[in-house]
């Protein structure tokens, strides 16, 4: 029984080669592809079709929600729910509420940033077809990989294979789903 083809995986030993390959692939019209590297490579995400980074906006929203919520909590507790005269200060004592407002802002923004990375990247995820490729295990030891999926609209087995092998790749392998 032959396993379904997931895509072709090309390995490079230089980040610049991978970046070049990804840009070439994009020029040929490939859209369903992924690039893997042991450390971030500038411009690589855009080369494989990354469009808009939502993350900073989510963090901004999280921080603002945290700040407003933190301030409201203190206002409600001190001026509405549990009114106590503390050293003659007004019940709604704005300067005293600032430290906690700041801390809660940072806390919510940080939690949003952390969880947003994983949610937007589709993690945690225990399995992925790319893990089937033995070459993938050597990624963190300095391999830079480009995978063009078989589901790509302009994927054409022989043509894509020839394209990848002509790119100064160390090796090109099939990845099975």
């Amino acid at each position, binding site marked *: 029984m032959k396993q379904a083809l997931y895509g072709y995986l090309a390995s490079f030993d230089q980040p610049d080669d991978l970046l070049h390959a990804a840009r070439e692939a994009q020029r040929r019209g490939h859209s369903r592809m992924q690039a893997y590297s042991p450390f971030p490579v500038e411009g690589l995400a855009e080369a494989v079709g990354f469009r808009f980074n939502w993350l900073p906006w989510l963090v901004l929203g999280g921080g603002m929600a945290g700040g407003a919520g933190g301030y409201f909590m203190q206002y409600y*507790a001190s001026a509405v729910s549990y009114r106590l005269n503390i050293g003659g200060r007004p019940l709604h004592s704005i300067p005293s509420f600032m430290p906690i407002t700041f801390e809660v802002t940072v806390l919510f923004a940080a939690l949003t940033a952390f969880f947003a990375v994983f949610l937007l990247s589709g*993690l945690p995820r225990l399995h992925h077809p790319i893990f089937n490729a033995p070459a993938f295990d050597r990624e963190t*030891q300095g391999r830079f990989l480009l995978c063009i999926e078989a589901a790509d609209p302009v994927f054409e087995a022989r043509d894509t294979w020839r394209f990848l092998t002509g790119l100064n790749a160390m090796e090109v392998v099939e990845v099975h789903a």
Partner: protein
Amino acid sequence: MASKTRQPAERSESGFEHPGPVLVGSPTYATVDAQISDIVLHRPVKRGWLFGLVLSFLFVMILFYTITYLLIRGVGIWGVNVPVAWGFAIANFVWWIGIGHAGTLISAILLLLKQQWRTSINRFAEAMTLFAVACAGLFPLIHLGRPWDFYWLVPYPNTMSLWPQFRSPLVWDFFAVSTYLTVSILFWFLGMVPDLRAIYNRAQTPWKKFIYGVLSLGWRGDAVHWKYYNSAYYLLAALATPLVVSVHSIVSLDFAVAIVPGWHSTIFPPYFVAGAILSGFAMVLTLAIPLRRFYHLENLVTLRHLENCAKVILVTSAIVGYGYCEEALMAWYSGDPYEKYMMINRMLGSYGFAYWLLIFCNVVVTQSLWWRKARLNVVWLFVLSLLVQSGMWTERVVIVVQSLHRDFMPSAWHMYYPTVWDWAALAGTVGLFFALFFLFIRVLPMISISEVQELSKEQRDARGAGDAEWSGRPSAGKEAGL
């Protein structure tokens, strides 16, 4: 040892001796990966590590014993009493929090300032932050009269219809420290996910594969992952930067908001933050110097790192010294008899010896770092780091104890003498800190693999040449059995 480790120093074009590059040699991606992950995966348990862990764990046992006894008998087992109601426990809290701050400074502020030298030391500096904050957090809790009611600090809807008192610096402190701990954990873990993947890739036994595989959350190093990762990492750094300043400022407000002479001062927030960074960088040196030697990391944690830490110590020691002068000046200039008396008593009173000890450790000894020879002398840096930490701890004790022991009413004056339990709690947390650290260096990558790989590329690109020398053998490290 000093002469041996000084050898990477080379002469630059200007003729000055400089301490060499951030990374020594041209490590390839594979050798970086192998060198760091092998400490976790393949290095056998050595006697020195075991001895260190057992010794620290002994002190953890002392800590458990102290806390148990404290819960049974109450805070009276310590030397605290009116007027010195805050003794070692609060001083220890301030000191430990301060030590944590250097870790955040290295990981966040130096990241934003694009200081490449932070790369090899940020991971274990962040771990240092976490463990220091864990030790710090214990003290205010066990210092409560009824520690089991500590959760009353948390604002939650409760059947008692009570709320925390949000105008109190102690509640601010609770929010500041818990936020700091949470954000430090997030930052540390996020930075480690790609490295956990790297360790998973090299792990051979099923258990290690399972544990590191699950911890890495399925990280693939996808370009899109990295995009989000970088974005979040820099945002967390930008959030942690004001956070770290706010935390020690709020800690200092615990004191500054009170009207006690010696506490009631507007210089406290910046002065506390500078002191925090001073003691924290000293702790970085205390940890880094043995680590690089015993784990043969001299090529990654280079003399350049140690020298830069020494420079930060010199600068923050100058700021702290300025704080000491300013404190004395304001006591005199205020014309307030209580302030004046406090200052004279601090210098010449019963605790005067501690004052001069802290001046010596925090301001005088550090002046040696003006000389490059001293900054590159590893043995001296290690000794100095211990002196600075003792000095900073003494400073916190002097601020807490000496200010309180002369109240406004002479009838209330009283000396504070630490009991064996005061010392046991301090020694116990030192043990806890080191026990956690010993475990950390064996189970998690203590240096960031992906960041050092990136740095090694940048360093190679900057040199221009070298490409031909190393390309084409991407797994040289593995074959060499590193």
